[in-house]
């Protein structure tokens, strides 16, 4: 009986090909849109996580802030009349040593980094960034295409060496190999500076990261942190430091333990200032959450077209039942019960919706992977969104088929048989 109804539904579907196709179109478009959006959304979320994998995701920033503030973004509670920050309120190399002694085995290190400014050399303008090894770790994955990285000795002594990007090397020296050992010079602010190129790097492309961080098209020259300093490192005061955890699962614990330690031992007696924390993980979670919200809103809008499609199915079912009034009368005369008739038309509307959703899923998968490819991220439709589409379209078939099917079931057989 059930199989008979399914067979019957398909034969009706093929008997009116054009009409069936137009009826299904709403469902097809709706499902395709939902699948495309879900695929794209999930791909964006995944590639965000991937783009900030490794050391970058393990950053924990400790920011010196007023005691009244709840978090680093809490400008409402900032007291403008409070006393200005003094050197003694800030952190320095002694803080690093204390943290190293206490948490050294769990930390990759403290990231030191300073944007020295834009340097003009020939026609090129490049950013000059001073880094320690730890900071370079968080600058993104890079491969050395020529020469070598900055050595420990160079980091410690603060020698004027640099690693430059492949693009800069090509532009200024002609090729990566030609750049090694040469001086890159230019004006940095009012000074003229010169660094010996020891290596040429190439960064891995990350479209998603550029999108989120607002990538500058400008190339960066990395120099040892001490090479950028005019004074001894011990004299530098920091109003914020970034520690990097070795293990991503340890970030939350380190965040609490280090800030508790600093606030007790260093800021316990401070009348105005303390440290607040912010982690890359929490930032990424926020981005992930926002992407999730956008995905949800877009999917909901797409679902409206699914609703319109469902109404279309209901409409065509009513038309079809009116056309087939005599058939329904005949079936009843031959012994079909009201339930038999209802089931027949419910299955028919479910089949329309299911076939529509199958086509929609196929189109949505194509659309989703097409858009992902255009944004150079990888994404495939998730099994859960496909399963949800199938379940939803079945539910739609039942919901929008129920009224027409009940109408058919309730037809009076005598009148139905007489219907012209």
């Amino acid at each position, binding site marked *: *009986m059930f*199989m*008979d109804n399914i067979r019957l539904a398909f*034969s*009706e579907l093929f*008997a009116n090909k054009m009409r069936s196709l137009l009826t299904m179109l709403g469902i097809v478009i709706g499902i395709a849109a939902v699948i495309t959006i879900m695929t794209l959304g999930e791909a964006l979320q995944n590639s965000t996580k991937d783009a900030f994998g490794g050391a970058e995701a393990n950053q924990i920033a400790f920011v010196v802030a007023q005691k009244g503030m709840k978090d680093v973004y809490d400008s409402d509670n900032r007291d403008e009349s409070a006393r200005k920050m003094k050197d003694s309120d800030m952190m320095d190399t002694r803080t690093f040593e204390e943290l190293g002694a206490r948490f050294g085995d769990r930390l990759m290190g403290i990231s030191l980094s300073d944007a020295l400014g834009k340097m003009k050399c020939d026609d090129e303008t490049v950013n000059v960034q001073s880094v320690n090894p730890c900071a370079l770790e968080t600058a993104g994955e890079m491969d050395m295409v020529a020469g070598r990285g900055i050595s420990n000795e160079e980091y410690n002594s603060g020698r004027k060496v640099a690693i430059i990007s492949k693009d800069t090397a090509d532009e200024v020296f002609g090729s990566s190999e030609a750049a090694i050992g040469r001086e890159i010079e230019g004006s940095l602010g009012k000074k003229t500076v010169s660094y010996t190129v020891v290596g040429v790097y190439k960064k891995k492309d990350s479209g998603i990261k550029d999108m989120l961080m607002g990538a500058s098209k400008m190339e960066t020259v990395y120099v040892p942190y001490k090479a950028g300093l005019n004074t001894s490192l011990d004299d530098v005061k920091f109003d914020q430091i970034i520690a990097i955890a070795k293990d991503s699962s340890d970030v939350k614990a380190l965040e609490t333990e280090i800030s508790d330690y600093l606030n007790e031992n260093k800021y316990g007696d401070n009348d105005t200032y303390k440290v607040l924390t912010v982690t890359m993980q929490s930032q990424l979670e926020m981005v992930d959450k926002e992407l999730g919200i956008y995905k949800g809103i877009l999917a909901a809008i797409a679902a409206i077209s699914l609703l319109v499609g469902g109404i279309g199915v209901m409409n065509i079912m009513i038309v079809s039942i009116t056309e087939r009034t*005599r*058939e329904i*009368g*005949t*079936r*009843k*005369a*031959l*012994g*079909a*019960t*009201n*339930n*038999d008739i209802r089931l027949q038309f419910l299955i028919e509307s479910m089949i329309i919706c299911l076939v529509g959703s199958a086509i929609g899923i196929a189109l949505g998968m194509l659309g989703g992977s097409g858009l992902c490819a255009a944004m150079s991220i990888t994404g495939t439709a998730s099994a859960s969104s496909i399963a949800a589409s199938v379940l939803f379209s079945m539910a739609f078939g039942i919901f929008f088929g129920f009224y027409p099917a009940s109408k058919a079931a309730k037809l009076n*057989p*005598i009148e139905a*048989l007489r219907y012209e």
Partner: protein
Amino acid sequence: MNGDVVIDLKKIYKRFYEGSPNELEILHGVDLTVREGEFVSIVGASGSGKSTLMNIIGALDRPSDGSYTLGGTDICAAADNELSHIRNKQIGFVFQTYNLIPRNTALKNVELPMMYARLNPFARKKRAKELLELVGMGDRISHTPDELSGGQKQRVAIARALANDPSIILADEPTGALDSRTGRLIMDLFHKLHEEKGITIVLITHSNELAEETERVLTLMDGNIISERRGNAYVHGQYKTRVQ
């Protein structure tokens, strides 16, 4: 020779718009019995209440008053679902306009009553083939109604009516849409089924000529059965010459 009472109608009244000012009484206390194996015709002009009576006999409608037992079941007391089952098992309809399901093959059409009787697909198919052979349509089982002539469609409809081995075949103007030659062939088929298989047939028609071919002719006029007699042609066996 004829057996138990299959159809027993007693004092059947049918009124439409009951209780309203334009109440209309179509049947005024009809009494009618049909025994197993009989070939009975109900003849009457249009407006005589033929269709209304047929709907009641066919369990498509309930009488306003009176009692009706079909094969021992009280039709008046049956719920909608029970009426469906009664129509399915006890009655084989043959309509003037065939009423085959379009786009379904002859075989599928004949299978339909058996499908609603929840017979398994194999048994259904086997019996449908046998029945189509019986009505001389064995070579057309996979044709759809569009591909069949009127007479062929009516043969398929008769095979379908026989599907669940019903107590009676209820034929409503079965030759009404056919030319006389084809109509003749259909009538011959009814006689063959009646004589060879002992099938009970109730023929509803406006044609006296056709009615004469049946064992018993009941004339309906203005909602009453006004006469009951033996069919002349049946008695004299005249139709038989045409069968051969």
